[in-house]
């Protein structure tokens, strides 16, 4: 089976966006039955399912553009970690609830700007997906915002945890805006999303009385298939059923 490294730009782009959504959906799904309240279980599962829907569309499209007969399941379940194109931000472990909300805030704020811009793409499939997904991620962004405000501007304990959550995920935010080396002309240059993203996130952090972290290092390489040790463990759990029972349905 050929790796993602040989994909042409449009397929690789759809795969990158789809992998971001797929991996974060899997992470958020880990919260089910573990969230602070059953209502939050439902909210996080809803967000995960929105992301899974986006991933299915994007992976199916990537497979179609590739033209090698790989469907969404093949791409989700039969690639190894070096062939995944997601940013490292979405694969790192959930941490506590504040870490999860910090990540959801910065990622959904990024996705909101991305899909807003992608609605004007010259590629009808990408533009169509973006038009549907932008409403979903607007809600994800709002959900994360509500929690960051409440935890950041809450008790001494919740503020400390919120700040620690932001500090933990911040080194991974820069990667969202790295230029895609093989950006197709119908894609969105992520660097152009940064001002609007920073405007939104900074306003939330300020209102939440949190400090914007200034990390001494930054992650690199997710788009090139370089991942943290955590992705392999996530994939083992996500893929084992399909690999043990190929084509299993229920």
């Amino acid at each position, binding site marked *: 089976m050929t790796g993602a490294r040989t994909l042409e730009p449009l397929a690789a782009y759809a795969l990158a966006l789809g992998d971001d959504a797929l991996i974060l959906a899997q992470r958020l799904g880990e919260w089910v039955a573990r969230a602070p*309240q*059953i209502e939050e279980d439902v909210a996080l599962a809803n967000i995960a399912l929105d992301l899974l829907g986006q991933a299915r569309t994007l992976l199916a499209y990537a497979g179609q553009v590739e033209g090698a007969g790989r469907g969404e399941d093949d791409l989700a379940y039969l690639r190894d970690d070096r062939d995944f194109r997601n940013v490292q931000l979405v694969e790192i472990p959930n941490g506590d609830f504040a870490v999860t909300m910090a990540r959801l805030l910065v990622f959904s704020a990024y996705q909101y700007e991305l899909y807003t811009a992608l609605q004007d793409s010259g590629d009808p499939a990408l533009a169509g997906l973006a038009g549907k997904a932008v409403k979903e991620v607007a809600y994800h962004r709002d959900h994360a915002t509500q929690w960051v405000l409440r935890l950041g501007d809450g008790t001494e304990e919740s503020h400390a945890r919120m700040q620690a959550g932001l500090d933990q995920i911040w080194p991974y935010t820069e990667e969202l805006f790295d230029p895609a080396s093989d950006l197709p002309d119908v894609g969105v240059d992520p660097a152009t999303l940064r001002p609007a993203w920073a405007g939104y996130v900074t306003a939330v952090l300020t209102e939440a009385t949190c400090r914007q972290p200034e990390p001494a290092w930054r992650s690199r390489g997710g788009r090139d298939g370089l991942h943290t040790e955590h992705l392999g463990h996530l994939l083992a759990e996500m893929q084992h059923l399909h690999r043990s029972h190929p084509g299993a349905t229920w």
Partner: protein
Amino acid sequence: MNNNEPNGPGVRSWPLWEVFVRARRGLAHQHVGSLHAPDAAMALRNARDVYTRRGEGVSIWVVPSAAIVASSPDEKDSFFDPAADKVYRHPTFYDVPEGAKHL
């Protein structure tokens, strides 16, 4: 243990909210259930997730459960029984014209 700690000492729970959903324009909001949330804004968002996931509504109200004043089961007899023998309150004394259908 006080009322704010129903799960035990030191374990605080979020307050309860009653949820009302309007299925579509022109209909009244209907009570659909209740949920926990730390405040009104989160209650509205939780209600959206718990009760309108399948396109059930176009409008949601949330009301603190503590704000509901309910009739007491003990007062059921005095509240409701007197209506039982007032047959004249029911529109059963009208002659139905010949040919009127769908009544």
